[in-house]
């Protein structure tokens, strides 16, 4: 009987990292995704890298190969840009909060109650999206303007009530943002609520749960991914909002997108504009990551 312990075990050759990488690059999935990845790098990552690069070049220069400097960031932190940041993030937060409050009952109705009327109601909500945002906001401008405006003029003619000016105030900007971004909160919320199984609601009712308990412990947790995605989408879009503040707010409400626009156009200070953009992306990114950590994408996509 041979002593097996003396037989050396043949070494299994471990593939190197380069070999693994090559194998991965040659896999059908990566090959199929390559065209999209190329577009992604050129169209999305590339511009972001350029903006990041410009943010570290000296102010009012147009050469990416110039000297490295953090002067633009110092300028942002020593000047009053915090005002615009606060306004933009506060307005975006308020827009999300209001849209969640307004959108939840509508989403609930669309997913549970309206039945065959859900489609027409959805259509009514979608149709305004076919019209340019600027045109819709200009409609609000005409509606709200003092004197001959539709609201002010109508109230004065019919009831003799003088509304005074309704434009150029932060509240008007918030109202416009709620109006513009409601569909972006609403539709993911409809998706989330439609994932709530009727059986679970009925079971919890049979077990004696109150309506509020059903809302808090059954509907809300199951619908949460849709609600969070809607809130996230709205927040990111609203942080970059500019038209509402320019047209209806009369620039009495400073927003960060306006600062960026100033630097890229009349100031011709691309590095400073880039630095403000990068900071906005970073702050928004941090907030998004915080929310995404609470989001179970596998569950949302039905994989678990």
């Amino acid at each position, binding site marked *: 009987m041979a002593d097996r312990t003396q037989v050396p075990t043949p070494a299994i050759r471990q593939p190197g990292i380069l070999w693994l990488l090559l194998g991965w690059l040659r896999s059908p999935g990566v090959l199929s995704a390559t*065209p999209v990845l*190329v*577009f992604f790098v*050129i*169209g999305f990552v590339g511009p972001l890298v350029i903006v990041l690069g410009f943010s570290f070049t000296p102010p*009012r220069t*147009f050469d990416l190969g110039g000297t490295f400097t953090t002067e633009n960031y110092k300028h942002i932190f020593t*000047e*009053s*840009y915090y*005002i*615009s940041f606060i306004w933009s993030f506060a307005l975006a937060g308020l827009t999300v909060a209001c849209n969640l409050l307004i959108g939840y009952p509508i989403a609930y109705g669309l997913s549970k109650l309206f039945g065959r009327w859900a489609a027409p109601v959805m259509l009514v909500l979608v149709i305004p999206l076919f019209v340019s945002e600027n045109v819709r906001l*200009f409609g609000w*401008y*005409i509606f709200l*303007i*003092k*004197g*001959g*405006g539709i609201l002010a003029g109508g109230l004065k003619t019919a009831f003799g009530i003088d509304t005074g*000016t309704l*434009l*150029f105030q932060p509240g008007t900007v918030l109202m416009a943002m709620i109006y513009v971004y409601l569909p972006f909160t609403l539709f993911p919320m409809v998706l989330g609520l439609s994932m709530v199984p009727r059986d679970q609601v009925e079971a919890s009712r049979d077990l004696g749960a109150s309506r509020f308990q059903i809302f808090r412990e059954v509907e809300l947790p199951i619908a949460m991914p849709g609600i969070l995605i809607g809130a996230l989408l709205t927040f990111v879009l609203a942080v970059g909002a500019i038209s509402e503040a*320019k*047209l209806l707010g*009369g*620039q*009495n409400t*400073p927003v960060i997108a*306006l*600062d960026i626009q*100033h630097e890229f*156009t*009349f*100031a*011709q*200070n691309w590095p400073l504009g880039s630095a403000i953009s990068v900071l906005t992306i970073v702050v928004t990114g941090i907030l998004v990551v915080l929310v995404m950590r609470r989001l179970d994408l596998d569950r949302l996509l039905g994989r678990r």
Partner: protein
Amino acid sequence: MNEEKLLKQMVKRNPVRGAAATRRQVLQGIGAGALALGAGGAFAGRAQAADNLAMLTWDGYVDPRVLDGFTDTHGAGVDYEIHTSDPDSVNKLRAGQTEIWDIINLNNPWAREYMWPEGLIVELDRARFEPYFDAMLPMFKPPYKWAMSLDGNHLLGVCQRVDTFDFVVNTDVISAETAKDEGWDLFNNPDMAGRYGILAYDNWNIMHFCMAAGIHPFQDKTDEQVAAFEETARRLINGAVAITGDFVPLNLAVVNGEIDGYISGGTYSISSARLEGLSNLYHVVPRSGPADGKGGINWIELSSVVNNPDLHPKAMDWMEYILQPDVSYAVATAGGILVPVGQMSQPDVMAKFSAEELDSFQWDEFDYRIEHCVEYDVVPDYNRLYDIYTTALREKA
């Protein structure tokens, strides 16, 4: 006929008819698209300029009457981009886009003070183009300063749209004569706080705030003058009911009584409303001011030919085409914005304007306005003043 041709082309391109493409063909197409994108803007620019003239311009030259007329007479289409500001487009050329563009149309100082010294534009044949200056309003008599190089030897462009740009009042509330007499002090008066708006054409705001602060906008400024500018800018911005980059909302605000006037406005911003009968919207040039005794500013647009190494063969033809009577009228009324053009000295151009159109840009006092204005120029210390301006906007009380 053209529509029929277009329809036939669309039918030929019907994607459903070509839907039998193989997966390999689709991937080849995607790869080619990615390569084209990777080749960058210069590649796209040349491909485009091989057929069409490429133009960086203000809005006067993008009217379909102007563009289609050129295509009909010269057989070349025109691609264009409208500026956000003069320096924006000059910087595009500086960044290497001379290879893309054939024509650039800017306000008066840029050609002679920047683009020609930096080799961004080419000179025009004086024998071919100066006769057109002879036929223009007397202020353009050749050699016309803003169309010539600093040494006076090279013709750098042709002029067309010209007017003044200062402020607008509602004459139902403030009479034109009072506004002219008070000039910029009208807005310095504390009683006007909360009764006016600002048209956010930022570079013009800087010039007008200088005027309101009693400073010549086109001369170097002392620290005391910069401090005066800051005080004035903050006060005027804080006193404004609304600041917006679009003149239509401001005109509506004047008409509806939200405001009684706005800073940075002129016939350019009110002519379309005046043509609709709102003649109480009135452009005012002050009788006096701090700029050599003048309080107004007038602008002149100049079209130049870009120093493109592969210049479109019809570029010079475009320069001559836009000076023809029909085109001059189309440029003067482009997009429903009516402004005077230098060719209005010619009877056949003048005859095209109705009395209402002439009144829309207050033609009856054009000479008064030009006489009481300094010519638009580059503002020294602009960057410093602009930073003050944007800070004041951000910190608006």
